[in-house]
């Protein structure tokens, strides 16, 4: 292409020479330039218009293809189910130590309403109230006639309820798939399992989250998809748990107690085989947290873990063990337990004002002498006593794998005086949970090692640091056995299982402070069996028991907690696989007779 110059000077000069008008040449030149410019613009526009056309064609094709893909895909029926809508994978099951299911999931449906789509509201309300008697008719009417476009009616439906709602035939009532947590054993191990509720909720699914107990403690873990549904194995044995709850419930009624708790622990691993607190609840339908009254009276309250009580004379064995360990006494050391024994201006007395006179350490345990134990404790001193009790775990929460365990914080004296030393030696002035006591007794039972209570199944012994020698532990066990055979826990002997243990009856402190109730006690029996080679520790506590078969109510542990514990051991020991050591029957003496 030849460039056209802005002003064709040569031609202009030539025209001037010829006397022609040069303006025409300039105009002509301008016209040519303009035409060239337009041609260029036109060529460029041609290309760009082609690009535009192709782009439009492509865009329309994409929409067409997308339409085709959509039309070719299956319509989602029912509409509430959309692929990939589930919020989480399944929550892992919880099983007992033998693989039996404690908690699992079930597919169910939730019921929600689109009031604006309803055809016959009145009929729907009537029918819903018939199917779910707990719904309030007026409330429903108000909700359905308001401006709301969406509301939940029920979070979970049984298949029968779903069918009934379906049969109403109301298009404004819709179902959303739900996964619900099911506890097939009902009340069993309720406090361990806790319960679960719904977290984030959508129409198509809802998150199941633990609200209490081990469900909440291991919530993240149970929901972790990386588990791939592997069940959480607990140390609980369903059979033992069932037996324990049965016996405990009977015992609680028989002894007129308002509450009861029991812990059965493997002494070598710290595994809690069964743990129960009564009254209890159904985790499938966990009651709401109490808003009035004492929280410790609610069925949700876990007396075995959360409840901290002065556990009374059951503590005496710790003073005796420590004194023996320190070499201060031997089981045969003689101590005068006669009054007076005053400490810090405070007179220490015995149960019912008795006087046991001069006793060996063993005798002090068998008779449960406060003064005797107090004198032993004084010899140990506050410092060493604190260290020993701390090493047994009495200074902090047990750390059991349920969220409530953090609430079971022992109550310690603000200032650990000599008087505290004496009273704590017989179980007053320090409050701990039955589970704490179980861990303490396990140390004596397993030969001197601490254990950490756990709800998870262990495959091998989990012994902590040694706190007393084998010999001390053995001596302590002999004393505990004698308490049963000769002392306060004589109802506790179960033939063949060589039960040893210590009773404890502690007056309940008044809630508002200021002294103790005269007629309300916490009766505890801390026991291990068989004492020859202890395998299990059982702590059984009754709250405000009263045995009324005699002239006046008897409240001591020996009359209340001990018989219940004996019944329990008699039931569960065979289930635990322990063989009774049957003493051979006395052979009829052979008499030589001769006539």
């Amino acid at each position: 292409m030849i460039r056209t110059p802005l002003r064709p000077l040569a031609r202009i000069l030539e025209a001037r020479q010829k006397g022609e008008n040069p303006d025409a040449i300039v105009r002509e030149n301008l016209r040519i330039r303009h035409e060239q410019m337009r041609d260029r613009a036109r060529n460029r526009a041609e290309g760009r218009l082609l690009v535009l056309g192709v782009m439009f064609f492509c865009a329309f094709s994409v929409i067409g293809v997308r339409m085709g893909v959509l039309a070719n895909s299956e319509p989602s029926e029912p509409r509430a189910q959309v692929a990939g809508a589930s919020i989480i994978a399944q929550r892992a099951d919880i099983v007992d130590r033998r693989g039996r299911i404690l908690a699992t999931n079930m597919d169910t449906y939730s019921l929600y309403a689109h009031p604006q789509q309803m055809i016959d509201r009145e009929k729907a309300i009537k029918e819903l109230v018939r199917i779910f008697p707990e719904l309030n008719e007026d409330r429903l009417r108000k909700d359905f006639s308001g401006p709301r476009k969406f509301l939940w009616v029920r979070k979970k439906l049984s298949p029968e309820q779903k069918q009934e709602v379906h049969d109403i035939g109301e298009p404004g009532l819709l179902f959303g798939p739900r996964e619900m947590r099911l506890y097939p054993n009902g009340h069993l191990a309720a406090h361990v399992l806790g319960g679960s509720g719904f977290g984030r909720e959508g129409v198509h699914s809802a998150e199941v989250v633990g609200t209490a107990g081990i469900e909440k403690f291991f919530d993240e873990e149970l929901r972790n998809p990386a588990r791939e549904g592997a069940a959480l194995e607990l140390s609980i044995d369903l059979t033992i748990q069932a037996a324990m709850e049965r016996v405990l419930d009977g015992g609680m009624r028989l002894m007129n107690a308002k509450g009861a708790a029991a812990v059965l622990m493997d002494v070598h691993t710290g595994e809690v085989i069964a743990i129960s607190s009564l009254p209890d609840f159904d985790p499938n339908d966990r009651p709401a947290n109490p808003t009035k009254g004492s929280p410790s009276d609610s069925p949700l309250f876990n007396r075995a873990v959360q409840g901290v009580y002065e556990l009374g004379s059951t503590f005496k064995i710790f003073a005796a063990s420590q004194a023996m360990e320190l070499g201060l006494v031997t089981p045969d050391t003689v101590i005068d337990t006669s009054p007076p024994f005053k400490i810090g201006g405070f007179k220490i007395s015995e149960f019912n004002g008795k006087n046991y006179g001069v006793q060996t350490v063993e005798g002090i345990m068998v008779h449960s002498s406060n003064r005797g134990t107090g004198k032993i404790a004084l010899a140990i001193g506050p410092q060493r006593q604190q260290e020993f009790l701390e090493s047994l775990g009495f200074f902090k929460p047990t750390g059991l794998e349920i969220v409530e365990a953090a609430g079971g914080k022992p109550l310690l004296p603000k200032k650990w005086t000599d008087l505290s030393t004496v009273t704590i030696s017989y179980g007053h002035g320090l409050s701990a949970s039955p589970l704490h006591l179980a861990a303490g007794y396990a140390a004596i039972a397993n030969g001197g090692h601490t254990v950490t209570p756990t709800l998870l199944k262990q495959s091998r012994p989990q012994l902590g640091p040694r706190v007393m020698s084998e010999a001390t532990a053995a001596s302590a066990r002999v004393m505990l056995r004698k308490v049963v055979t000769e002392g306060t826990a004589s109802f506790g002997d179960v033939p063949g299982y060589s039960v040893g243990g210590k009773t404890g009856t502690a007056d309940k402190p008044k809630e508002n402070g200021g002294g103790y109730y005269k007629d309300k006690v916490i009766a505890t029996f801390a026991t291990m069996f068989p004492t020859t080679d202890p395998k299990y520790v059982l702590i059984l506590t009754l709250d405000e028991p009263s045995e009324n078969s005699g002239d006046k109510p008897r409240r001591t542990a020996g009359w209340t907690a001990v018989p219940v514990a004996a019944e329990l051991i008699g039931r569960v020991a065979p289930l635990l696989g322990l063989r009774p050591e049957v003493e051979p029957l006395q052979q009829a003496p052979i008499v030589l007779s001769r006539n």
Partner: protein
Amino acid sequence: MTEMVYGTVSVRDSEPVLPKWWRTVDKWSLSCILMLFGIGILLGLAASPPLAERNNLDPFYYVQRQAFFGGLALTAMFLTSLASPVMVRRLAVIGFLIAFVALAMLPFLGTDFGKGAIRWYSLGFASVQPSEFLKPGFVVVAAWMMAASQEINGPPGKLWSFALAVAIVLMLAMQPDFGQACLVLFGWGVMYFVAGAPILLLMGMAGLVVFGGSIAYEHSEHFARRIDGFLSPEIDPNTQMGYATNAIQEGGFFGVGVGEGQVKWSLPDAHTDFIIAVAAEEYGLVLVLCILAIYAAIVVRSLIRLMRERDPFIRLAGTGLACMFGVQAMINMGVAVRLLPAKGMTLPFISYGGSSLIAGGIAVGMLLAFTRVRPQGEIGDILRGRTR
């Protein structure tokens, strides 16, 4: 001849108006538009009875109105397409000025019909949305300015038209009506592109959009959530989008049958923004693809015809009108298939709506006028290689 030369007798075009129109008009596009109008009536029969029932009117009240306005629109289209490009330009500029003033007065005189955005003038029997009429007018005015800027010693028309576009976009955004604002901006952009936007600027803008988008996605959680939510396959089945998707799926290839569709009962905008969902459900993919093909045919055909256009004004104005028409259809259908985020945009000629129908008719009439066959210096093209 002498009389003619001296102007005592007006020069007559040798050819009568109507035969010339018929000879030069793009008959393919014309028949496509008539088909769209027919489909609009057909789908109106399906989609509008629920609305009529809600408003306690005769079931086919809205179909009758659609037919009436459609007739007006077709008449407007026919008359507009008869005019010469220069006449179209004059009328469009006048129309644009009126619409512009009307748009500016909207905040004081307009009504919102309880929908939250003041976009309409209520005329009693019908309502008028000035922005619908403004769009084709703006395209013509902007094309005129840009074409003028291509003249030697012409005005800076590209800048002026951009300023005008920004002013209109701001006014629309204040209503707020972001859909129309985007459309106006898009129309201007397309014309600017064809009028010779520098490639560097285009690439820079594309880069800026990508860069800004990724920055926003990285740093703005709100923005990221919007995008993620739009990209995710999960939709709430109780939203408009959910119903529309479900309707398309229900319809499959051949539809559930005439009058059997359910979606029109659930969607409040079934007769306007989501009419394609009604079409998909009742008539299936077949009709939807037909509609798509018709829109594509109109746009692509117009663009191809404009490729050979010599006159820059006609070229630009035609491009703007065709692209705006096509993009509006594309956005509407793209929303229904969830390729685009939800945006209220009517489907030209098919959706119900008086002023959008008539404005659409005028716009398409202009497009037809611009794409009529004219001598384009074909001989010059053929000889171009040899001359100059």
